[in-house]
């Protein structure tokens, strides 16, 4: 589904991604871990098309198409979704209107008619329940005055509504208490299917107790320095990242 080859990217003249290689196939759940500042959010930003990043080398193929050639909206319409680490507050744009616009723009792109209001509301209700998203927030301005947890739930709620092929969750778990984490994880699990894939960025292995990954990658200093299975996450939880950093530095000095 997604092939990242030797991806290099910079922001403000600073090299952040330094040769990422990653293959994500249908049905897979990939976890990306790594210390703060290692480039996890940068990777998701580059994939989603944030404009202040410049790709200097490498390529990304998404469902057979060159992802890097597409505008952010076309990436979303092609089935890519990124749940933001820091969702944006947009006063004056209602949550409901925003979602309806997004959903219908994606439908138009695929040659489908706009969704009937009734059908839209039904879908909204169903997906709200999935992540236990407070219905009162629907008519409020997008994320404005939402608590940290509400914002994160809103991201997953949007994910459920837009039904992408590949979902990137950037630290969706941080800011959630344990009950909320369980609900959100259960929601994500319900969305898993044989033709969808997930890339879950997290700091903590606790999320991975609920969302069991097929692969765990460690991103450090703009590169994937280690790939393993869910046991790797446990190991990182126990030992921290220092041993990995050392390994990397030893390799570099060889």
């Amino acid at each position, binding site marked *: 589904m997604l092939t990242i080859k030797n991806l290099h990217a910079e922001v403000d003249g600073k090299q952040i991604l330094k040769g990422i290689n990653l293959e994500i196939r249908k049905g897979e759940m990939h976890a990306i871990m790594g210390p703060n500042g290692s480039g996890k959010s940068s990777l998701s930003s580059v994939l989603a098309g944030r404009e202040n990043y410049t790709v200097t080398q490498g390529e990304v193929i998404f469902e057979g198409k060159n992802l890097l050639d597409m505008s952010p909206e076309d990436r979303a319409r092609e089935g890519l979704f*990124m749940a933001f680490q820091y969702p944006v507050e947009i*006063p004056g744009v209602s949550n409901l209107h925003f979602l309806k616009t997004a959903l219908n723009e994606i439908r138009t792109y695929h040659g489908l008619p706009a969704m009937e209001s009734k059908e839209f509301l039904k879908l909204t209700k169903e997906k709200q329940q999935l992540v236990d998203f407070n219905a009162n927030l629907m008519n409020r301005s997008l994320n404005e005055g939402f608590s940290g947890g509400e914002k994160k739930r809103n991201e997953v709620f949007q994910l459920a509504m*837009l039904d992408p092929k590949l979902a990137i969750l950037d630290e969706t778990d941080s800011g959630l208490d344990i009950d909320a984490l369980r609900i959100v994880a259960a929601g994500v699990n319900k969305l898993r299917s044989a033709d969808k894939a997930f890339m879950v960025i997290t700091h903590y292995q606790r999320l991975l107790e609920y969302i069991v990954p097929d692969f765990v990658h460690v991103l450090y200093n703009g590169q994937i320095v280690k790939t393993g299975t869910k046991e790797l996450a446990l190991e990182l939880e126990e030992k921290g990242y220092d041993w990995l950093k050392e390994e990397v530095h030893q390799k570099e000095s060889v």
Partner: protein
Amino acid sequence: MTSDKSFYEFISNGVPGPEQKVDADNAILPARKLAFSRFKELGLPTIKTEEWRYTNIQRYLKDAFTLAQEEQGTVTAEQLKAASIPHLDSYRAVLVNGRLQADLSVLPSGGKITVSKLSDAAGNPQLQAWFDKHPHLQSQPFAALNAALFADGLFIEAGTNATLDKPLHIIHVYTASTNAFIQPRHLVVLHKSATLEVIESAVGINDNAITFVNAVTEVVLEENAELWHYNIQNTVKNSRHIHNTSATQKADSRYHHFNFTLPSAELTRNNLSVALTGSNTETNLHGLYLATGTQHVDNHTFVDHLVPNCNSNELYKGVLLDDANGVFTGRIHVNVDAQKTNAFQQNNNLLMSEKANINSQPQLEIFADDVKCSHGFTVGRFSDEALFYLRSRGIGAEAAKSLLVNAFAFDITDQVHIPALQDFLAEKIRQYVAGAINN
């Protein structure tokens, strides 16, 4: 009457006075003469005139214009349709080049609300009482010029306790095929406890010639009267507008004024002023200006708290693109005995290009001590982060910008109580953003 070259020169020196106007409206001829000599005294402003510092009016008057007095013009049904607001259920007064066209209009009849040509009302005591009497108009040269030489306009009178079942939509159509200087003039009088909703919009049909509109609207609200007054300015590029709107509010009256300046007239100067002469009044002034290209939009507002216990609330918002230029001057005067005044003013701007510009200044003149007054001014740029967030959900750049501009304008459009008008404005904002992106 045509100026062969600079109209500025012509109206400064050459324009003949109103003496020759001895037709139906000669009842107000003395008032016209007075206004003409006032105009001669005041002279036209230059950029050295404080109130015109940021609007170089000479620039917009250097062309040749015909001082249109009798111009008739015709309007087709199609053109009229283009000027209408979809799904708006309203009465309709169509003015072609400032003159009411009865055959195109649907006016309220049989009730306590009259809508007629101002020229037909020249002998009406209300006109005698109020015509050109507003204190704030006395220092305005363009208002004086209008009073002296206006062609025609509307007289709207609502009797005691009168209401209308739907709004009155005044459609101004400008048809001139050669440069024309058009001066409509209106008087709106609401007697005790009357209420009315008035929407004004304007369309230009001919973009080959310049239409200069110098309009004056006087509003009188007697005790406990309430007026919702929406003014939508969305004519063609080749038009220039100076509008003086002056209201007088007596005790317990409520005036809600909305001004929407949309693309693409090259000049818009609005002088909006309200004199509060009775206590316990409410005044809400809302403005939204969207400007593109080299549009120049200048809003001068003046709220004059003359007596105690009045509330005024003003919010003007602007979105400026390209090389557009905005001016906002919000004057609030609180008289020495106007205690317990609440006067709020806010002007927020969104600049969408490097070259767009705004000059904004409050002018607070507060002489009473027990008052609550505040003012604020902001200039912001577009949030790239918000734009990216919307686009990352599949919303195209254009639709995303339109959502954000709508969101910025929301405080204003949300106050509009007529759904069809709200929809119309949302559509205009969408077109504005689309135009901006396709430029």
